[in-house]
């Protein structure tokens, strides 16, 4: 672990940017149709629940990296294996986000540019930031957060003023009953994007005031839940469920629908700025977490030395993981939540917490006996 300190407020900003990251550009929870926003809110509530598991673990070892304390809890060798698996998991997620954003840029703007070039630029930027450390990323986040907040507020204002919003499109909210909404929340939104906050297990020990971590985390998840829900509600209100369902990037279409006063139109740049900010933070954080964890696990003295090699891994992985965009997206919807997110975000942490709980309880009793 590097010797760095970030404030609780910076943690809040990083979590919000991270959660919005790629979730705001995709048709999140559209399987729940008009109830997508509701599914997102339920997902956020679930995300808060998962966060409490992570927080409980953090409370046992507030100063240690998870790579270390997992070895205390389940033993040295199994702990190392688990930590290694998590490094692979984060590298894969980082590569997925790189691919998401490379594909987005090609689809909407740089049709003739090869994917490799776009991904390379993004990974280079992430690697550079990581070499500068988490403090720099946190401060960059503060700046970007202001930009993003301005973008969101003005975009919502423009959408509301432009008259393209039709609340009727949001009805009926529960046309098929509550079941599809709850199902979407539990098979998708809890894990993506909210459960991905697991990456912050590596960041939490840096926070100057550990007491504030719980409140900050819950607040950040709730806030990003509300922002994502209102984005999906705006998408549905402007485009209608059918069009959102067919769109790769519904937020882009929503922004493009704004036509105000004969000159405020084609505001694609709004979408690009917001997407790139979110994407940058998410890619960098995932890569940072894998670099920091790998440095801890393999006892590399200077974690920043690992930034380039792992950056290359992410770059190549981002090209290799899928042959086409539909393949990439289907993997993300069908395979990743069930086979990766569920075990890595919920089952493993819950098991580790259980073991930690039993051990500490036992130790507590011993203490009393003495």
């Amino acid at each position, binding site marked *: 672990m590097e010797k760095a300190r970030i404030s609780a407020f910076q943690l809040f900003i990083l979590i919000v940017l991270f959660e919005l990251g790629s979730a705001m550009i995709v048709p999140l929870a559209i399987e729940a149709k008009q109830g997508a926003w509701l599914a997102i809110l339920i997902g956020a509530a679930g995300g808060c629940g998962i966060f409490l598991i992570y927080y409980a673990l953090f409370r046992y070892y507030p100063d240690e990296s998870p790579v270390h304390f997992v070895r205390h809890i389940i033993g040295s060798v199994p702990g190392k294996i688990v930590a290694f698996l998590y490094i692979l998991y984060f590298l894969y997620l980082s590569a997925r986000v790189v691919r998401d954003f490379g594909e987005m840029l090609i*689809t909407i703007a740089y049709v*003739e540019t090869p994917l490799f070039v776009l991904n390379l630029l993004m990974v280079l930027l992430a690697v550079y930031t990581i070499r500068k450390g988490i403090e720099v990323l946190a401060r960059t986040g503060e700046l970007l957060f202001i930009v993003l907040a301005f973008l969101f507020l003005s975009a919502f204002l423009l959408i509301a003023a432009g008259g393209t919003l039709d609340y*009727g499109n949001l009805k009926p909210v529960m*046309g098929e009953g509550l079941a599809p909404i709850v199902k979407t929340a539990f098979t998708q939104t809890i894990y993506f994007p909210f459960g991905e906050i697991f990456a912050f297990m590596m960041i939490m020990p840096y926070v100057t005031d550990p007491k504030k971590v719980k409140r900050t985390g819950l607040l950040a998840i709730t806030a990003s839940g509300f922002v994502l829900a209102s984005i999906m509600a705006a998408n549905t209100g402007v*485009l209608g469920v059918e069009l959102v369902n*067919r769109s790769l990037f519904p937020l882009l*279409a929503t922004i*493009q629908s704004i*036509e105000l006063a004969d000159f405020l139109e084609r505001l694609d740049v709004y979408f690009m700025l917001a997407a790139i900010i979110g994407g940058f933070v998410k890619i960098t954080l995932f890569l940072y977490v894998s670099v920091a964890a790998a440095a801890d696990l393999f006892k590399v003295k200077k974690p920043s030395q690992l930034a380039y090699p792992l950056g290359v891994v992410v770059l190549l992985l981002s090209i290799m993981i899928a042959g086409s965009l539909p393949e990439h997206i289907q993997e993300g919807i069908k395979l990743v939540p069930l086979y990766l997110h569920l075990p890595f975000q919920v089952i493993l942490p819950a098991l580790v917490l259980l073991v930690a709980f039993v051990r500490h309880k036992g130790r507590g009793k011993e203490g009393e006996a003495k």
Partner: protein
Amino acid sequence: MKRKWILFSTMMISMAFLSGCWSKKELSELALISAVGIDRDEDGNYMKAIQIINPGNVSSGLQGGGGGQAPGVTVITAEGKSIVDVHINASAEISRQLYHPHANLIVIGEDLAREQPLNTLLDSFDRNAEFRNTAQLVIAKKSPAADLIKVLSPVEKLPSEKIYKTLDVTEKMRGENITVSLQDFIKTSASPGIEPVLSSFTLEGDVKEGKKQENIQQSQPETIVKADGLAIFKEDKLVDFYSGNMARGVVWILDRVKQTDVLLDWKKNKDAITYSVIRQSTSVSADTSKDLPEITVNVKAEGMIRETEAPVKLDDPNVIHELEKTAEKEIKEQLERTVKQTQNKKTDIFGFGQTVYRKDADKWKKLRNNWNDDYFPNLKVKVNVDAFIRRTGLRTAPNLSEIKEKYE
């Protein structure tokens, strides 16, 4: 420190040279498309007419001369098996790369719209990130789409602009047309319980004359393009055209009327009083308690008297009240006629099904399969109109002899 500054300034300078070289497009290498028209020939190939802006000829006339000698646009046509195929074939005719982002009008020929589901034609536009999804979609009534965009127009230098703006103005003034963008159309045709409508334009005169610059060098152009009511769709295909009060009835029930005129009968004088609606709001609600839903259309209109041809004492509140009743009856009859005739056409352009779906999704599940053919035509539709006359212009009673005699 000095080295740092040198490095920094080198980096800043090199940025100017490094940016924007990949797939760059110079303005002088682009042909800006302003409108496209799509038809089909006898062999079943698509024919696309592409209206391209001649930048030199549309520059402002302030400098005098220059602009105005040649038309502001050039139209090229090409054929192909698919819409994109046509587009690529068209590059054989033009020295520059065709550039979409400025296109704000798509015209579809009547014949093509009757034969082929419209969404199959629009897919390439919808899919293309370069194309504006806010471009307007219109139907060329009784003529090929290509002719419509070839005709040069007075006042506006770009024919596409002329159609675009005409639509906008007549929607606001007359309420017999509505602006429907590419995205609106796709959205509506995909939504359950509603069928889309589009505005239609017709050509008056001969297209051969209309293409020439001489057409607009006279005070009354031989050939003009004008807005002409609505094109009605059923299951993605054009089935009929509405014009006049029928078209306005549709626009009215869709709550898209901004201003319009209603002609009222007074005593024995037919269409004697012109009631101008300044603002209105219409809401549609559904009662889903019975087997077949019942629809209620509530209209609230507010306006003024703008013209009278009959002796009527407009300073008398009782007369105004009576006129309000007449207006309510007239609007109600018009809307009911529109609904009745549309029910005979078996296509739910009013979105009554959508209202049912939004109110009661379970009910809609039972009805949706044969909505247009079995349920929509048999719906009981009630129209309630509340009309208000707020003022009568600068004068009270008209200057007509019958009234004068009475005063004396």
